[in-house]
């Protein structure tokens, strides 16, 4: 049982949907990002996705691209990202942290060394956008063997034939990307998402969380009501990018969390 599994067990008991939020490590600088991160659980966030900055985020829209650039220009590194996780963990042993990013920074460090360091820092799961099931031997299998969850994306192009392949080595939860497109794309309608979530749930016992394009508390409620929870990324990152004070960012996050939790 990882922190992720525990969190879903707890939510299930209380009959609540999960609210997952994404921020970029080191955006716009480490103290600000850490202050936001520390405030997320209090704002109602059940699981934190922490972006690992990369120069070439091919699956991200402009909001998250710019966040990564701000972080890198501020000198953000893999080591500093892991340090951020350790600093967060010093005050919070419960909230799961999923590191989300691209493979090359992990590959450059060396998979085994990276996994040891990630686990020691207190990371619970990984989402690596450019590692489909076809490349499971790279990181997915070693990560699971080391005790991390490896969370996979399912998308509208993942048809019935392919779904078992996608689900096979997935753990923690399934992240359903509700639209074809990059992060920050237009939101899907809850009515369109519902049958897709049902299709995935028919093939797995894992929770299904839906993301991409959710911007408002109403959308969070709508999407969460047809799934096990929802993810908001770009909308929060946009607030950070606009230079809003931490308290204001967290108030916005709290409104989204309340939306998801009212589902």
């Amino acid at each position: 049982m990882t922190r992720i599994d525990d969190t879903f067990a707890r939510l299930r008991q209380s009959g609540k949907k999960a609210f997952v939020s994404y921020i970029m490590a080191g955006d716009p600088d480490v103290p600000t990002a850490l202050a936001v991160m520390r405030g997320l659980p209090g704002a109602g966030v059940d699981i934190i996705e922490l972006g690992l900055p990369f120069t070439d985020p091919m699956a991200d829209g402009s909001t998250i691209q710019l966040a990564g650039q701000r972080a890198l220009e501020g000198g953000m590194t893999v080591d500093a990202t892991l340090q951020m996780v350790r600093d967060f963990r010093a005050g919070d042993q419960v909230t799961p942290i999923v590191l989300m990013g691209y493979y090359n920074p992990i590959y450059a460090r060396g998979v085994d060394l990276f996994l040891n360091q990630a686990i020691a820092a207190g990371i619970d799961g990984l989402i690596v956008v450019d590692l489909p099931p076809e490349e499971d031997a790279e990181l997915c299998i070693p990560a699971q063997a080391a005790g991390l969850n490896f969370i996979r994306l399912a998308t509208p192009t993942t048809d019935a034939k392919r779904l078992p392949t996608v689900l096979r080595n997935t753990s923690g939860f399934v992240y359903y990307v509700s639209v074809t497109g990059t992060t920050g794309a237009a939101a899907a309608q809850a009515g369109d998402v519902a049958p897709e979530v049902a299709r995935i749930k028919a093939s797995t016992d894992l929770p299904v969380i839906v993301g991409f394009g959710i911007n408002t508390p109403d959308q969070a409620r709508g999407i969460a009501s047809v799934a096990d929870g929802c993810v908001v990324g770009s909308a929060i990152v946009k607030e950070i990018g606009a230079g809003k004070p931490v308290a204001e960012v967290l108030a916005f996050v709290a409104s989204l969390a309340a939306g998801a939790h009212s589902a």
Partner: protein
Amino acid sequence: MPEDLINSYMTGPDEQGRFGMFGGRFVSETLMPLILDLEERYEFAKTDPTFWAEMDWLWKHYVGRPSPLYYAERLTQHLGGAKIYMKRDELNHTGAHKINNVLGQIILARRMGKTRIIAETGAGQHGVATATVCAKFGLQCVVYMGAHDVERQAPNVFRMKLLGAEVIPVTSGRGTLKDAMNDALRDWVTNVRDTFYCIGTVAGPHPYPAMVRDFQSIIGKEVRWQLAEQEGEGRLPDTVIAAIGGGSNAMGLFYPFLDDPSVGIIGVEAGGKGVDDRMQHCASLTGGRPGVLHGNRTYLLQDLDGQILEGFSISAGLDYPGIGPEHAWLHDTKRAQYVSITDAEALEAFQLCCKLEGIIPALEPAHALAHVMKIAPGLPADHIIVMNMCGRGDKDIFTVAKHLGQDMKV
């Protein structure tokens, strides 16, 4: 061809799309079903005679193939050593080798029922080739080009527009070729149903590196019979040389000779201002490390944290921080040798070629020629070098004028 295929260099990639440890399919889940579908359709087309009949007809009547294999007599005499041939792919329609590959991909796209074609371009040669073939077939064409390159390569931008393509300047990242490729991938992820991504070099996820190589291999296949025609039955080149951006013109020339051990193979990377730790070059093999970008594992210019670095070269077409995975494998297995040539050396070769042969080369093949100039004098007169003159230099005259200190009003 060796009878023992285990010792063949021509069997790759494997089913995972790997050349040794290089290559693969490092893409997001949204794209995965698309590249699997593409692979299936390409595997079918590859053995379909009607596909190749269509290609051959267009290669002949639209592109102007076969391109000549030309004995560069004055250059040979000037250098005073090896006998130098040029494969004249700069005479192709649109002025470079890029169209060889574009035709193949667009015919495939049509067979797959795709109506919208996207491409990335650096110097604009692949963009122009794609816009050209799309115009011919009445397909919608969208070309992503780094904002920086849009400025540097204004004539090619205008050409693409004349041909009916939409050119989208890419401002993300630092606005160069790798960012254009990122944005093309983002477009593809968004428009999965009707869009075909026409990649311009032997990079990207499997099956692109193999497919683009196969389409470009027409270059080396022609060299085989053309050289036999001019030098006698069975005569193979002793050395084949080509410039490398992503590596497509080079793979096209090299591939048909991989299993001929007597043929030496040399790839020439862009050395920019010199291959050292200032990193002002694009020599991924000589100055990079293995990593994962744009769907494949290959040698990349990157920092210790795995962040990708920008390349630097006088030639916009070589300005890419990676290299096709098959080259990475040929490098590690030592079947091919990879060297680098600086901007200054390429400029010198550019001028020499104009004066001695009456051929204005593109800056990309000028790199290959600069290496020919280095090695030819030390080789015997019966040593045959074939270099790939993969593009003509009209697009580069403004850049060259600037470097020669001549102010040309555009």
